[in-house]
């Protein structure tokens, strides 16, 4: 930390002040609590359409073919010799799916999906993994409520290893 702290005029303090509202466009991280999940909602059906149009080319028609990462299936494989780690079989938090798809997918146009579209495609992927029923609809509250099959499958090494 700085050797001596003293009160300085704002002009002398590096950087500029900003308010949380002005950070909104960047403040896209969603923790397991779901804090920060946006308005809007999307259905499994909407997600299916969107997935076929914008995701299937890389992740496969059913989410199991690739060439990019498998998103569906692999249940019961984690203790096998060839575990298949997917959103369904491996990911501990559904919030991570919303967070990641919104920030990074589709690969060549990240940020192009509306929030309701992100809810929809997340719903569809959870449905393909047997976590949500066919007629489900996701919004901030229902996403927060999802419990992932492998939620208990993670152990935090930190801080115990330090």
């Amino acid at each position: 930390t700085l050797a001596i702290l003293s009160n300085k005029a704002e002009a002398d303090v590096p950087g500029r002040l900003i308010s949380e509202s002005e950070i909104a466009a960047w403040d896209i991280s969603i923790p397991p609590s779901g804090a920060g999940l946006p308005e809007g909602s999307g259905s499994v059906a909407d997600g299916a359409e969107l997935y076929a149009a914008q995701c299937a080319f890389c992740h496969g028609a059913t989410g199991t073919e690739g060439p990019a990462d498998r998103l569906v299936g692999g249940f019961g494989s984690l203790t096998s010799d060839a575990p298949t780690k997917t959103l369904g079989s491996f990911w501990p938090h559904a919030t991570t799916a919303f967070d990641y798809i919104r920030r990074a997918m589709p690969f060549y146009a990240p940020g192009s999906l509306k929030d309701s579209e992100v809810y929809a495609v997340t719903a569809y992927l959870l449905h393909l993994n047997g976590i949500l029923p066919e007629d489900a609809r996701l919004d901030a509250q229902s996403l927060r409520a999802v419990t992932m099959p492998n939620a208990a499958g993670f152990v935090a090494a930190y801080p115990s290893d330090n």
Partner: protein
Amino acid sequence: LGVAAFGGVAAAGKSLAAPLAVPEWSEVPGLPMSGYGQPSPFEAHVQRPVLGLYPEGTGDGAGVSFTPLEHLEGTITPNGLFFERHHSGIPEIDPTRHELVIHGLVRQPRVFTSEDLVGMPLITQTVFLECAGNSLFNSLAEPQQRSAGEIHGLIGAAEWTGVRLADLLDLVGIDPRATWILAEGADAAKQSRSIPLSKIIDGDAMVALYQNGERLRPEQGYPMRLVLPGWQGSMQTKWLRRIKLVDGPTQTKDETSKYSLSQKDGRAQQFIFEMGVKSVITRPSPGIAPTRPGLYQISGLAWSGAGRIVRVQVSADGGTSWADALLDGDARPKMLTRFRLPWDWSGEPALLMSRATDEMGAVQPTRMEWYAPWAPEQLYHQNAIQVWSVAATGEVQNVYL
């Protein structure tokens, strides 16, 4: 281990060399001075091997390139050959439009330009930076025949200069409820990771602006990146645009789906940050082979995320006997250390290995020891002893013992 010193020669002998000729470059003036120099065209083969991870059109720019360790010496990695790991390619950032915002559990959020940071108190730390997936090829069931850099080259070391992250947090004021941060890049993946505040407060975390004297290269996070000495590379967020103080880990894709370590029981360990004690012999190594029996210099690199390297042992007989290598210069904490040892090769097949020990007493494990707790496909934090087999022909291969 047959080690011996390079010897003086006693008797004057018969000349074996042709008369020295004057080459053409001594007979006419050479190239003029230039604004920014480049390597010799004769070193054009010294490149980072590039490995895309997805078929073309389905993830271009997601992949790695390796530091060609077997072509380098000393401990600094030149900026042009420092390994890369990108999840969505290298953003072409205009530094005058880039900003770093710090917000969340703070007294007052602030935004910083790189010029703001350049004018602040700067510190310099010379440390390595290693991808958690380094050496992953040695996690595969069969030993891959690749160069030392193509196996172990997801590591580089540099003199980083920038702002201590703790100083920046002082400027925004830390809310006592904050225990972690979320760090996020401005790349298309907005790659994001959770970092405990303990690495920052009274820790060595920094926002780096300069690498080996000059501003960061684009592939290293220009105009600013995190440097977390000794910790895994993917946390050291490049193109850093945002730090959010939070009350727990955000559980991002790259700390759950990826970069977690699967145990045999199917459960995965998260938040293993520190890179283990490790070493690799870079000379000889595949492609850098002895050409005849006789004296050679074994040269390699050792490092530990926990601190200083205190010892490197070398074996030429597959681990039956070991000799202490010479550590070159000061072994600095969380920095590459060069080790060297003369090696008198009889011409018989040999198995070369190096084993590092750090100041915490941690000793580099064998591949079997390293593997013990992990699922078969787990490949992160591979710090096992590398075994190079030297055939009677001199050919060097990657083998498992």
